[in-house]
């Protein structure tokens, strides 16, 4: 059985400045994995290059052995929420339904079956009361959940999320991580570009440390240590063990 994601020699550049260099990474099926690294380390670019949104200079990516173009249905993408015009005339249910467009292909319209699935997805992310709201009326966390619901619609095996916890409220964060953990228990593979080092250990099983090159990757317990962090972030990173924190554990 092929691993969920295989990345070979992935190199990407922005105006001839390398953003990703020679990344070799294998991600097995059924894990919840974080991708961390400093700003500008290429984390978002990694996802975009995997999906062909950005054309890499070199390298290949395989999902269960297929290229992305061969089998798009396998992968769902949840972008950073900043990338969309929130004043667009569209409602929550509308956006979530867009998740079915890929499956339907040309000319076909979404029907009753898709609508039912959309309601289920909206229910799962806890936005059922907001179904008909125009999206600018939602809070940041709710907007993020709409994108997640859209991804759930895609019936994919692999989920790629770009900083889903950035700027969201605690309730949203709790509900999102619960959904991601559920996905993992269903055998899905979830890869998350993550910004908060404090939560890596409690949320994820695996982690990849990225700073243009792949610094380390593997199980959190093995790879998430001060030595690797220092190599990746290039400075002093202090992590407080959770016992010392006064925050609620999620």
């Amino acid at each position, binding site marked *: 059985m092929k691993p969920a994601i295989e990345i070979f020699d992935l190199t990407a550049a922005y105006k001839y400045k390398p953003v990703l260099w020679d990344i070799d990474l294998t991600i097995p099926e059924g894990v919840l994995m974080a991708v961390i690294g400093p700003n500008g380390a290429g984390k978002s670019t990694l996802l975009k290059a995997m999906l062909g949104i950005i054309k890499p200079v070199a390298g290949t990516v395989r999902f269960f052995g297929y290229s992305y173009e061969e089998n*798009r249905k396998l992968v769902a993408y949840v972008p950073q929420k900043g990338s*969309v015009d929130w004043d*667009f*005339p569209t*409602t929550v249910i*509308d956006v979530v339904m867009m998740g079915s*467009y890929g499956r*339907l292909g040309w000319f076909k319209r979404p029907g009753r079956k898709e609508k039912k699935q959309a309601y289920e997805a909206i229910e799962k992310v806890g936005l059922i009361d907001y179904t008909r709201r*125009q999206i600018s009326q939602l809070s940041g966390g709710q907007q993020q959940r709409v994108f997640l619901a859209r991804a759930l619609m*895609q019936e994919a095996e692999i989920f790629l999320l770009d900083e889903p916890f950035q700027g969201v409220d605690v309730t949203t964060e709790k509900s999102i991580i619960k959904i991601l953990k559920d996905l993992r228990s269903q055998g899905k593979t979830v890869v998350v570009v993550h910004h908060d080092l404090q939560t890596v250990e409690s949320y994820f099983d695996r982690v990849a440390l990225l700073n243009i090159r792949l610094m380390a990757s593997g199980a959190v317990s093995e790879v998430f240590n001060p030595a690797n962090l220092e190599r990746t972030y290039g400075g002093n990173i202090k992590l407080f063990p959770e016992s010392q924190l006064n925050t609620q554990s999620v």
Partner: protein
Amino acid sequence: MENAITEFFTNHTFLIIAAGTSILGIVSGMLGSFAMLRRQSLFGDAISHAALPGIVLAFLISGSRDSLWLLSGAAIFGWLATLFILSVVNNTRIKSDSALGIALSVFFGFGIVLLTYVQKIPDSQQAGLDRFIFGQAATLVKRDVIIMSVVGVVILICMLLFWKEFKIMAFDPDFAATIGVKTRFFNVFLTSMIVAAIVIGLQAVGVVLMSAMLIAPAAAARQWTNKLGMMVFLSALFGVISGVGGSAISSLGTRISTGPSIILTAVLIGAISFVLAPERGLMVKWIRDYQNRYKLELQKILDDMLEISLQHGEPYHPHSLAILNHTRGFNKKRILDLVNYGYIELVQGNEWKFTLKGYQKAQESTTSNKFEL
């Protein structure tokens, strides 16, 4: 007998104008919605100005005033301008607003040069070309309307067939790319349709003002709905009203160019929409703001009254109205309003005291900070 003929003729002419401007309205309404949502409003301005040299060159080359030639010339130059703008923006540090300004002024200036060159040719036929500057719907003939209809129908069909793709491209192009929508193809497709929409409107609205036809109906429509489909439909509807209405108005007077009247009609519809639309409209906002301020004023007075009462110890003890002079927002009218709502009672004309209802209300407002009348 002659009167009857004249009557019919006039009617027929107006039918043509109405048909032509309706198609113009529908097409610019539809495409304008997408252009506006993709922040390409001013891009339309550059394209329409750039069409002028295309129109004149087409005339020079073909020797004919036929719309098919002229509009093709307009479309070609519209596309040239687009390519120019994209090339400048992608390859140099010149920003898009400057690139638009360059395309707009230079192409148009060149068009004027060609126009003045053509006007020297001793041939009465070419005199009609400057109608493309400010538009003259009265010059539409049956053939023009047929061409416009064909283009319009093609655009309509394309929009319906590829609705999902256009919608998702406009809203979230990154996501669209991931689900396999060929974004490059659809970008070109959409731009071509925008160029076509502009080109078929030029005869009625003129190059200088055409861009507003892509914006005003769409901006107006946006205020009335949160669904893209409805917005596009309303936009087309407003476009038709502007087109037909504007031409009708301009023909009432002497021969004024139709461009300005169509545009003013469209902008008027826009202004009305901005003010009157439910939810987004300014009127609704103003009323809500006023109501909120009103409630806040009453709430403040009640809060202060509560404080005074609490100092005294007995909640329903009357106090002199004069004490309230020192509070914020003291206002005779508001006091009377409070009486009307049954929250306080006036005693002997110069004192006030809480009613049962009022005292409860004041307590509620202080603890929960919620205040509904």
